[in-house]
């Protein structure tokens, strides 16, 4: 596993920026900024597809802008088994669909609304995430 630097200030500022986006989406659209929900709805529902796709395009655009402004380039993981990405992606698709949310929808927006469902979901996915990441890191990396 590649070590990463502890970045409390940048991470906190990045969190504030994410929060501003969540507020924006509620103020202008009346919507929760839940990425899994936005992607899933864009895939299967014609109504409101355009703005959802543009939100997703924005995520990539923001990534590109961020990359150029900050110069953050991440060491992509050579030798990380691709089948883990395939299985993990599938689990994230199934899980966020069943559990109606991911880190953004439950973790940021839901907790901010003090939603009991989101608080429980966040505790569960963090707990399972810690167990699986710890096992994965010691077995594969």
């Amino acid at each position, binding site marked *: *596993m590649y*070590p*990463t*630097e*502890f970045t409390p200030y940048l*991470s*906190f*500022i*990045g*969190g504030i920026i994410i*929060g501003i*986006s969540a*507020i*924006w989406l509620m*103020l*202008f*659209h*009346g919507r929760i*900024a839940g*990425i899994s929900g936005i992607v899933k709805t864009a895939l*299967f529902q014609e109504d409101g597809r*355009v703005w959802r796709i*543009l939100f997703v395009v924005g*995520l*990539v*655009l*923001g*990534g590109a*802008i961020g*990359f150029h402004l*900050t110069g*953050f380039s*991440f060491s*992509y*993981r050579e030798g*990380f088994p*691709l089948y883990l*990405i395939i299985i*993990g*992606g*599938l*689990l*994230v698709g*199934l*899980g966020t*669909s*069943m*559990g*109606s949310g991911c880190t953004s929808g*439950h973790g940021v927006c*839901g*907790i901010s*609304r003090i939603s009991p*469902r989101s608080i*429980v*979901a966040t505790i569960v996915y963090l707990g*399972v995430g*810690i167990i*699986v990441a710890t096992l994965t*890191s010691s077995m594969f990396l």
Partner: protein
Amino acid sequence: MKKNLSALIAGTVFGFGLIVSGMSNPDKVMNFLNVIGQWDPSLLFVLGGAVITTFIGYRFVLKRKTPILDSEFFLPTNTVVDKKLLIGAALFGAGWGMTGFCPGPAITGLAFGVLEPVVFIISMSIGYLIMNKLSTK
């Protein structure tokens, strides 16, 4: 038109935040979740910054009768903690812990032009497709 532009801006700000926070780096996520490795607690600060900001912002925004560009607020109405929520959250946690990717950072990661986010998103979309087929049966 206004709605589409506004959504593009919101997405761009979100993606920018993911980069600045470090959350788009799967190594950083893995080092946060892997508690016996070289623990990097940065992600707690991402979540803290985002929740504090959103919590305060929502207090003001939700005092309005309607959002600016739509006729109503679309808030989840389900408040029951059920089996589906628990199993779903557990499956999501497993996929997140296994890869270091959740949906937002994976999409933002497309900006880097590397393979992992592409594979992850295709796989995740297949997951959505399966659930969609099951739920419409």
